[in-house]
């Protein structure tokens, strides 16, 4: 199995387009997933009986093979990017919902009580006290969901989308390993870079967590 390096440089433009399209699908899905799971998580956190149901439901959705989800969406959204994004969003829910609920659980009751005692409205407490304190756990979920989505986008190649996944079908049909290797490597790079960026975002967003690690603190 040999790699044709010339093919890679000849296709720099195509590879960039596919990488960007790949990233766009994954990020859109994570953002949509967050928009859906935040309110659901607050609901699951507040209304105990709903918690098991919502978490269970997201778990069951997770067990449905992704290819099947894409195919079953065809009558609804056709051979479009929308199909890809809806499918991916479903898979982000399991991680995002669970982590957001756990994040809210991890907020010390005292913090919330103190805010309410000071007369802060519940919604404001949620937005200014609870969610920020839950952020580290939520961000851990966002990181997993992002990496997972980036790896999953390529499945949509079976319905003619799939970003870098197009390289897999192409290499498969033509018995041509170079595009496949390039596709795998670019997917991994994309995931690693996205993950590193999210770590940086979290670092900026949660300054109060930095002092907790004695090793990183400078005397």
């Amino acid at each position, binding site marked *: *199995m040999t790699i044709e390096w010339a093919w890679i440089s000849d296709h720099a433009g195509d590879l960039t387009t596919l990488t960007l399209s790949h990233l766009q699908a994954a990020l859109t899905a994570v953002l949509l997933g967050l928009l859906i799971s935040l309110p659901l998580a607050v609901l699951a956190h507040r209304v105990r009986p709903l918690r098991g149901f919502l978490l269970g439901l997201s*778990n*069951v959705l*997770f*067990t*449905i*093979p*992704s*290819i*099947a*989800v894409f*195919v*079953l969406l*065809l*009558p609804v959204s056709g051979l479009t990017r929308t199909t890809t994004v809806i499918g991916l969003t479903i898979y982000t829910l399991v991680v995002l919902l669970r982590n957001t609920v756990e994040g809210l659980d991890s907020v010390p009751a005292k913090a919330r009580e103190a805010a309410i005692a000071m007369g802060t409205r519940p919604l404001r407490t949620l937005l200014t006290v609870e969610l920020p304190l839950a952020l580290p756990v939520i961000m851990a979920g966002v*990181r*997993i969901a992002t*990496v*997972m989505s*980036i*790896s*999953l*986008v*390529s*499945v949509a*190649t*079976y*319905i003619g989308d799939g970003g*870098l*996944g197009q*390289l*897999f*079908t192409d*290499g*498969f049909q033509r*018995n*041509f*390993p170079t595009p*496949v*290797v390039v*596709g*795998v490597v670019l*997917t*991994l790079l*994309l*995931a*690693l870079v996205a*993950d590193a960026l999210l770590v940086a975002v979290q670092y900026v967003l949660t300054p109060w967590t930095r002092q907790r690690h004695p090793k990183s603190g400078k005397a």
Partner: protein
Amino acid sequence: MYELFKDLGSWLVSSEQWTGPDGIGHRLAEHLQYSLIATVIAAVIALPLGLLIGHTGRGAFLAINLASFGRALPTVGLVVLVFLASGLSMTPVYVALVALAIPSIVTNTYAGMTAVDPEVKDAARGQGMRGRQVLLQVEIPLALPLIMTGLRLALIQVVATATIAAYVSFGGLGRYVFDGLAQRDLVQVLGGAVLVAVVAVVLDLALSGLQRVLFRHRTAA
């Protein structure tokens, strides 16, 4: 939608659908076979790795990065790559499924090991236990619930992903999904998907039930 589910009902109960080489019975058995083999291979690789990292406390950074690396590996790409390198066999499918299963097992095993109270380990050493004995008699039993959770998660992921075997001409429940896609037979796709989900959920419930039974004595002891 209603029609689709009605058709799904007749698809699932049709006796013809359950027999023969393309029957649900056979496809289900294949699917379980692929999933179990892959998970066992993954466990054989990942358990010692997780135990080693957890016991020595070295390589934790590696373990965590391995996990996110593993999650980022595109299964379709891996299957195609190994297919092009090794030809038509189940190897590409097993490589991809094992790669998928390893991260959950390693990270949960490692997490289970680090959750063991250092004082308990010290006490065991104080009683004259050697490193090996501490590992086998103290750490592993205490880490077992999380280790089991890792295995369970891995198995569920593998069951959902073993559909890919059908892409490279093999069987399993993925056959219905890929054939249904090619034939635009949504009932078949839905049938395959529902069966996979049911297998995953049943296995999950069975394993968590087993976990509860196994570790019930722990609170009593």
